[in-house]
């Protein structure tokens, strides 16, 4: 049921005026880039994920305090902040992976589209089928490359031409050319960077609304990292990407919006990436960004 609701709200409404949107994209992307303006991908912002006063505790310890933010659709939103400030915890709130941590308790409202995912009638399994996740350490299944990408299609009984979807997903993950002749080989035989792109292909194959990434490049070398960064930029044309990173340059390079969390689980500032990095409102954010944090 909940899956139905979400798809009604978020998938079908944009398809009512698909031509308009696509036209805008086609024409605006290039001109927007030339002018160097932020948010060139779409002309209007629609909120896809909205947190309202989200608080999280692990037993007695509060990890997030009154987080309120609106994540725009089809953009890259970065979450930065020092280690232990609750970035991963917030990410896990969005697809309710915190449900599986016994000690964790979440309060507040968190909307995906129009639906509060913490409503009693939301099935976390169904939720996670609409929200892809890429983890810090590449974690492909000990299965073939093909089966890794097709995993979501199989468990969700998604019909259609799986070969084509697998190919398309691997292309989007910029991995197709490297693996097209070895789809039957184990995903674990790939290098770390390739494994992470495989995980991204696996996450996008079932065509989720939102992709969550928790420091997806932190275990990778600089070349592999830059490939992932390019890829994220392209993904944002079709997906909403929410990415946790502790690398500020990375956030500045790839994101449209940036949320700065600071120790204690507070969201201190949230806004356009350009503004956060050039002219933040909050003094602590400025200190953190300029490295004076302490």
């Amino acid at each position: 049921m909940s899956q139905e609701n979400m798809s009604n709200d978020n998938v079908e409404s944009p398809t009512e005026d698909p031509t308009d949107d696509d036209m805008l994209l086609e024409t605006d992307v290039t001109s927007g880039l030339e002018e160097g303006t932020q948010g060139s991908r779409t002309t209007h912002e629609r909120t896809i994920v909205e947190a309202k006063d989200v608080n999280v505790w692990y037993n007695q310890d509060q990890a997030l305090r009154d987080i309120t933010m609106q994540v725009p659709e089809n953009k890259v939103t970065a979450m930065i902040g020092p280690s232990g400030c609750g970035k991963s915890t917030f990410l896990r709130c969005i697809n309710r992976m915190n449900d599986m941590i016994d000690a964790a308790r979440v309060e507040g409202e968190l909307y995906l589209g129009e639906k509060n995912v913490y409503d009693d009638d939301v099935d976390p399994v169904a939720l996670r089928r609409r929200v892809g996740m890429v983890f810090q350490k590449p974690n492909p299944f000990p299965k073939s490359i093909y089966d890794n990408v097709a995993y979501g299609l199989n468990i969700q009984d998604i019909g259609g031409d799986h070969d084509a979807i697998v190919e398309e997903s691997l292309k989007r993950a910029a991995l197709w050319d490297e693996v097209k002749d070895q789809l039957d080989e184990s995903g674990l035989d790939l290098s770390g960077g390739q494994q992470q792109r495989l995980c991204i292909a696996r996450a996008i194959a079932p065509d989720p609304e939102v992709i969550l990434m928790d420091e997806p490049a932190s275990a990778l070398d600089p070349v592999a990292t830059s490939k992932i960064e390019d890829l994220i930029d392209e993904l944002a044309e079709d997906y909403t990407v929410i990415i946790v990173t502790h690398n500020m340059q990375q956030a500045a390079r790839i994101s449209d919006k940036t949320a700065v969390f600071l120790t204690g689980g507070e969201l201190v500032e949230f806004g356009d990436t350009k503004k956060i990095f050039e002219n933040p409102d909050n003094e602590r954010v400025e200190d953190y960004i300029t490295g004076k944090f302490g």
Partner: protein
Amino acid sequence: MSTDDLTEDLTRNTANAPPELLTRSFFFLCAVLSIFTTLAIIALLVTEAAKFFSVTAPLMGIEGETASVVEFLTGTEWIIGEGKFGVLALVTSTVMVTLGSAIIALPLGVATAIYLSEYADPQVRSLLKPALEILAGVPTVVYGFFALIYITPALRTVFPSIGTFNLLSASIVVGIMIIPMVASISEDAMSAVPDDLRQAGYGMGATKFEVSTGIVVPAALSGILSSFILALSRAIGETMAVTVAAGAQAKFHNPFNPAAYLDGGSPMTATMVNLLTGDITGGGLAYRSLFAIGLTLFVITFAMNVISELVAQRYREEY
């Protein structure tokens, strides 16, 4: 420190200092001893079995009664009084007990392992895991009497024609015996699967069942298969329970005929026990047949161990 001191220090030969030498020799002796006893047992098996067969007996200086290798390997009757030594009459019973117990123990053992590793909360697991291990420590003769006194009478209510000694009851009880082994080793293999993979599965919107059966079990396959082979070896070699439950009446059966399980039989191990406890004279043909059976059993379990090695290599955990 002077350079002379330093040189002396650096060239001190610790590897051959007396305590090192002593401990090294001690461990070497222990290793030699255990390998030597094993080899000696195998040598005894082979030489005694050689005295049984007509091809090799003359080489061993044995005169008098011997048995043909071909008849031993292909004969289907084992009647000592008539000089009929067809080991297939025993092997088929062993195969039946192994097969029957496998049908019971492998699925139940893996299901138990999945429950313990993926579903049970830590408290339940901390109670059940040791309980399983205790179950594995019950003397096997007790299982045999359990089969005789409880399982067979219970089976009789369903199959009135079932004998007091029967292979079905033996299969069931051996199955119960090896469940803990399958469950415990498989559980270890599943618990060793990194949590990353489960997280990846849940992140994709998999249910607990899909994660357990579609991700954890395949990832732990090598350990699970090892547990199967170990359990089967155990079933093949199991002695006291089958001696009590299956009987002593050697009889050739078709292992794939379900009705045959209602009949009694004498697996290899049980036959050996009965040979030893019966009044056979040392040095006679019946006595030497003991070693021929023993050698056959050894070859089978040895082959199982080799297969287990190969399986472990083929399906090595690679996460």
